């Protein structure tokens, strides 16, 4: 068996074990939280009879162990069950939410990853000169501002102030003004539904994409810069320089391939963040993603849904880490052909 295939098989098996452990942790965690699903549904206005009736109907009056294994049995047969709170099919609601989350993560990553790496390369090329300092200053500033704050600032300037500003530009011809108004419209609410076209969907999530890009940029950019600078100290770079190669060419052909492993690791970490960690951005823009869905169900103690979300998040982390490992092996001849 090829060593890489063997590694993938090993990691997948380990991943499954991790998922199982995660499901136990999540189950125990939600059981420790005060209150239960019936109490959360009925809220302040719950009467003891109504509580008892609801508990019996939802089956949460059963012992925890019984509930866990009946859930596990369902999952192993591919049945995620129904939400306790509103009786909806979990797989169905989850797939829409997961689709939305991946959609946002995909577009944010499509912009953020190439941008971060390019900026990193530029920062190395102009090391310690003003472009390097400018890039670092801007990205470090945006990573230091809390993401909800960036969201609010963008909403304030782009959704509220910009239309007023354009509307006040009396000198513009009417046609141009109304064109600008209808096309430079940044929605502060990131609507997302099936009846929208792809262009409409992308337009609707412009602001969240901008926020996420600004938040993840610095980490990847700094890592690219550091990893390449590290390689730049090597003797073969000096050789390349002495051969008279241009700086950008050295970075592109000699330094970057050797710095891929750490960069890929950071990129995967940020991709995982884009999938599982964007609940704050979802709340600010009312985006119907997984994060908000999970938080709602945690606060209602809707265990089957929390379990399902937890499994997906864990799977995303495990999967992306696996990809990062494989890529770093493929990028390194010494690991690719072990003795």
């Amino acid at each position, binding site marked *: 068996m090829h060593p890489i295939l063997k590694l993938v098989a090993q990691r997948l098996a380990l991943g499954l074990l991790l998922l199982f452990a995660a499901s136990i942790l999540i189950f125990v965690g939600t059981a420790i939280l005060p209150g239960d699903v019936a109490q959360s549904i*009925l809220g302040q206005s719950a009467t003891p009879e109504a509580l008892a009736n609801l508990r*019996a109907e939802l089956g949460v009056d059963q012992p925890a162990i019984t509930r866990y294994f009946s859930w596990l049995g369902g999952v192993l047969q591919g049945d995620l069950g129904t939400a306790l709170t509103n009786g909806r099919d979990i797989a169905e609601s989850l797939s829409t939410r997961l689709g939305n989350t991946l959609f946002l993560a995909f577009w944010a990553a499509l912009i953020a990853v190439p941008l971060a790496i390019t900026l990193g390369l530029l920062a190395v090329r102009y090391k310690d000169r003003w472009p390097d300092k400018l890039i670092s200053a801007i990205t470090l500033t945006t990573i230091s501002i809390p993401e909800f704050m960036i969201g609010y600032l963008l909403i304030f300037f782009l959704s509220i102030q910009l239309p007023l500003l354009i509307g006040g530009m009396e000198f513009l011809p009417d046609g141009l003004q109304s064109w600008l108004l209808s096309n430079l419209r940044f929605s502060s609410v990131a609507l997302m539904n099936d009846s929208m076209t792809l262009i409409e969907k992308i337009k609707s999530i412009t602001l969240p994409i901008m926020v996420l890009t600004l938040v993840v940029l610095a980490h990847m950019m700094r890592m690219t810069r550091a990893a390449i600078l590290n390689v730049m100290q090597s003797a073969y770079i000096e050789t390349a320089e002495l051969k008279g190669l241009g700086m950008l060419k050295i970075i592109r052909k000699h330094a970057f391939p050797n710095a891929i492993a750490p960069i890929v690791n950071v990129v995967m970490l940020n991709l995982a963040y884009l999938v599982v960690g964007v609940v704050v951005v979802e709340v600010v823009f009312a985006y119907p993603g997984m994060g908000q*869905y999970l938080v709602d169900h945690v606060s209602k103690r809707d265990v089957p849904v929390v379990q399902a979300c937890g499994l997906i998040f864990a799977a995303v982390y495990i999967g992306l880490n696996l990809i990062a490992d494989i890529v770093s092996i493929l990028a390194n001849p010494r690991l690719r052909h072990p003795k």
Partner: protein
Amino acid sequence: MTDQLKHLSEKVTKGLMTRREFVGRAAALGVTAAVANSMLASAAKAAGPVRGGTLKLGASGGESTNTQDPALTASEVPLYNLRHWGETLVDVGADGNIEYRMAESVEGSADAKQWVFKIRKGVPFSNGKDMTPEDVLMTMQRHSNEDSQSGALGIMRGIEDMKVDGDNFIVNLSTGNADLPYLMADYHLMIQPGGGMDDPGAGIGTGPYTIEFDEPGVRHGFKRREDYWDAENRGFAEFSEQLVLNDATARTAALQSGQVHMINRVDPKVASLLDRAPNLSVKSTAGRGHYVFIMHVDTAPFDNNELRLALKYAINRQEMVDKILRGYGSIGNDFPINAGYPLFDTSIAQRAHDLAKAAEHYKKSGHDGSPIILRTADGAFPGAVDAAALFQQSAQAAGIPLEIKREPNDGYWSEVWNVQPFCASYWGGRPVQDQMYSTAYLSTADWNDTRFKRPEFDEMLLAARAEIDEVKRKEIYSKMAVMLRDEGGLILPMFNDFVGAIAANVGGWVDDPNGPLMNNKAPIKCWLTDA
């Protein structure tokens, strides 16, 4: 010139220019401010309701766990949903009087024990069938039978039996209740075909809209029904859409940028600033809801009335209204009734902030000086943590060792409220005094969160309930209020207003003290003037 003015006023309605700017420009064109303002007003207010368009509400209080089952409705977004597709027997109008919906008339017996609701004929459900008295009966049974999970279970408890007689739905009570029609206005009691026994969350009812799409925690869409029975008064927009915007800033931004036409729960901190923004207005309505600190009168040290009085005198009510509600509210008097209720006695003396008296009562109580623990959480009511801090400050000034214990929002209503002896909480208010008192101050009440159990009080409440003579009733209610104010475990510093906001092109707004955004009926009673 008129063309130019028209162009400018259109800009204002589109949100591209502030009202102030418009008046300035109009002045430059030789139009006085008064005329300019009235032009704007007439641009925004067409004569009578306008039909058509899509009216959008941005609302907080929705989660992805919500259902359309009226029995399980507890937060605000599902409540707006119910109002779209369902209707109750009666409504409580903005003036506090009964408005007839599925019932055409109501008649009570002299002892207020038997109530006959004449059911309206020819009202179709959205599934095409006509609503019948049997549907009403089955609905009421679903909310009151043994395995009911309904939030209305508590108010259905006094009912001895219910039956259908021809066109009438008849309710017999074990003890007389002159306010029964008000209880039937409870939003859980939406009339559903077959009582909703088979499919409670189907969203089929007699309301002006049907569900177009239903994505809990995200958005809910409704289409107007052609066959709605009361199209004269409700259901003007062709489509009504609700976006769930739980974040306060997201809500105000959506309104400001024109993505929604109305929003609920404007944070009092920003309400006055928001009101200055162009093309929208903040609507603040005095209601019956109140923010409270509750003491269990059967638990030491709160079983000592002197100590309770000390705390009641120590709280600075006006400061709370000014700093916590930013003026969007009014001071309370330690009983849960205000001028928003019928039969309110305005002559009851207001308790003032009096540190000397507080110190005096504290001394009389003989409390050993150990810390008195007040539990609070952000979720208890907006600003509850700050309010507790203000309370602590003023109590300490009177020498009372009040200590704050901050609790997590999670589980607050199950672990702290109605469990711990002293905590912050809120009440939403009820349409009539009897309902408020029976919900929380009757000895046997489910939610007697102050453990106030006094036979004299119960007797007065039951006597008032069956009393048809309003003068006598008012007298009894007044006595009860004074008793609760002086001996109860309730510290009620403030009544909060409902603060919402609507865009300038929304017509039909009426202040309704029964609930936020016209008792959750703004989406079905308002219209778009430029639809």
